[in-house]
């Protein structure tokens, strides 16, 4: 039945991607435009990161719950609340053409592969995970009995998906041939974070909040190789774009730990902001911007953790995105309906876009300096 459903819409998809290839450029510059969904306004806001302005509002028929973007497909992939379909938006067409992409599952999470050709779709309630190749109109993977509260991470070539299941303390993978692996990493409900993969794709780093450690996993052997002691209640590690460090926000305290990806050793644990939830690396991987759950930002030197400037966003932030030139960090602040821009080189606040709905989600960017988190 699923194959028939895909076939029914294949003609539309062929037209969609043919048109995408031929049409003049619009918002298909993957390094320039970011996209933010708002369910209440049934809209996707297109942010011009070069001009730091709202470039366009894409109005949808249904409320979006998630959005991801591919420069290769020149398309937005939008998930909807409690709806068994996606909307694909052609970013290269002048009218931003939209088509429905029916599913036999509810897309509670949509994750673009690094290659930009395939998308992982997860139905959390049903425990079903699928990988779709839109251009080939193919379902590459369909597996059941997948359980997680956190995000999926692709391997660098897009052939394998990794995730943690905190309910049983396991680290898991499945490849496109449906081969699954699972290892017990911690006790159930230990506060395992989502996975951060190293830039070279060789290692994965997973925080365990209850034990104040980060697990380093060798992805080629799928085995834990090191347990690194960090600060209090560590959250998901954030990798520097140059691959040297994993920066760990220690959410139970006020510190950030830097882990060398080469040695797996903690290089420093340094004072930062209270209850940090994210650490965004930028400006040629020399600067880190730690963000707290209450909206404080601390800029520090990546190499030694020394804080040189602090700011307040006046609202709880979502995860930020760093532009591919490593100069700009953009952080959505939903309770203020704002997107705040920070200058990573000057280590200062730059500007903001205000007047957005109060339910904006995280920003999606096709080519980001911190894409692989």
């Amino acid at each position, binding site marked *: 039945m699923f194959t028939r459903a895909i076939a029914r819409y294949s003609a539309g998809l062929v037209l969609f991607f043919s048109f995408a290839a031929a049409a003049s450029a619009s918002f298909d*510059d*993957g*390094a*320039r435009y970011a996209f933010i969904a708002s369910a209440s306004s049934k809209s996707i806001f297109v942010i011009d990161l*070069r001009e730091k302005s709202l470039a366009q509002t894409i109005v949808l028929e249904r409320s979006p719950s998630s959005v991801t973007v591919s*420069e290769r497909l020149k398309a937005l992939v939008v998930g909807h609340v409690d709806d068994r379909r996606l909307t694909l938006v052609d970013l290269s067409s002048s009218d931003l053409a939209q088509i429905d992409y029916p599913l036999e599952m509810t897309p509670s999470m949509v994750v673009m592969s690094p290659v930009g050709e395939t998308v992982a779709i997860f139905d959390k309630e049903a425990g079903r995970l699928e990988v779709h190749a839109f251009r080939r109109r193919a379902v590459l993977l369909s597996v059941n009995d997948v359980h997680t509260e956190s995000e999926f991470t692709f391997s660098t070539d897009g052939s394998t998906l990794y995730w943690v299941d905190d309910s049983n303390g396991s680290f898991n993978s499945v490849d496109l041939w449906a081969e699954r692996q699972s290892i017990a990493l911690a006790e159930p409900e230990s506060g395992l974070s989502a996975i951060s993969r190293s*830039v*070279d794709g*060789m290692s994965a780093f997973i925080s365990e909040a209850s034990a104040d450690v980060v697990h380093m996993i060798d992805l080629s052997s799928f085995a834990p190789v090191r347990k690194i002691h960090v600060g209090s209640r560590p959250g998901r590690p954030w990798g520097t*774009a*140059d*691959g*040297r460090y994993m920066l760990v926000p220690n959410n139970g305290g006020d510190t950030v730990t830097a882990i060398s990806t080469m040695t797996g050793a903690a290089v420093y644990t340094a004072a930062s902001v209270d209850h940090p939830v994210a650490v965004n690396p930028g*400006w*040629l*991987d*020399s*600067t880190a911007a730690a963000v707290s759950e209450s909206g404080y930002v601390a*800029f520090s*030197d990546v190499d030694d953790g020394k*804080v*040189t*400037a*602090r*700011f*307040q*966003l*006046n*609202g709880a932030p979502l995860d930020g995105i760093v*532009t*591919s*030139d*490593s*100069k700009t960090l953009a952080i959505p*602040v939903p309770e*203020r*309906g*704002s997107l*705040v821009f920070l200058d990573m*080189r*000057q*280590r*200062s*606040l730059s500007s*903001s876009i*205000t*007047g957005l709905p*109060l339910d904006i989600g995280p920003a999606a960017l*096709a*080519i980001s*300096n911190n894409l692989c988190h």
Partner: protein
Amino acid sequence: MRWPLILLALVCGSTGIAEDVVKGDFELLDHHGEAVTERSFDGKLRLVFFGFTQCPDVCPTTLLEVAHAMRRLGEDAVNVQPIFISVDRKNDTPEQLARYVAAFHPSLVGLTGSKQQIDAVAASFNVTYGVEPAASGASAPDSVFHSAYLFLMDRQGGFLDVFGYGTKADVIAARLREYL
């Protein structure tokens, strides 16, 4: 009522501007086998990119944008020197580099060197790279990763600006024109 965003700055210490992150010095061999330094290109703006010739995506994509940017500059392109520095000294001989750079733009120069020289230029540009040798007997090439920044350097080789991966030719050309 939507509250205006209040941005409260609590600056402590220096602003921490990392101006010295990129120095831009090098001593390398060009794709003709001639020794060159950053002074060899004095008088020209430089676009400097690190990579390797077997790179499947980031390097050719970026070098294509550089080539397009050069063509957009027209006659002014003679005042810009695009430079490709290979971090894969095992495979990227001067001969291999010569064949590779010629495929993109006639003025593109390919540079390589000893491990010490490549380490030194990578450090000078604050670039990271790594080479993971392929498994013994494997047909796949070595696995190489590297920073994907495109550096704009001034006429004496000093740092001016950096472009991120994915920056289009029109943006690169427009920035170059500001300095021409």
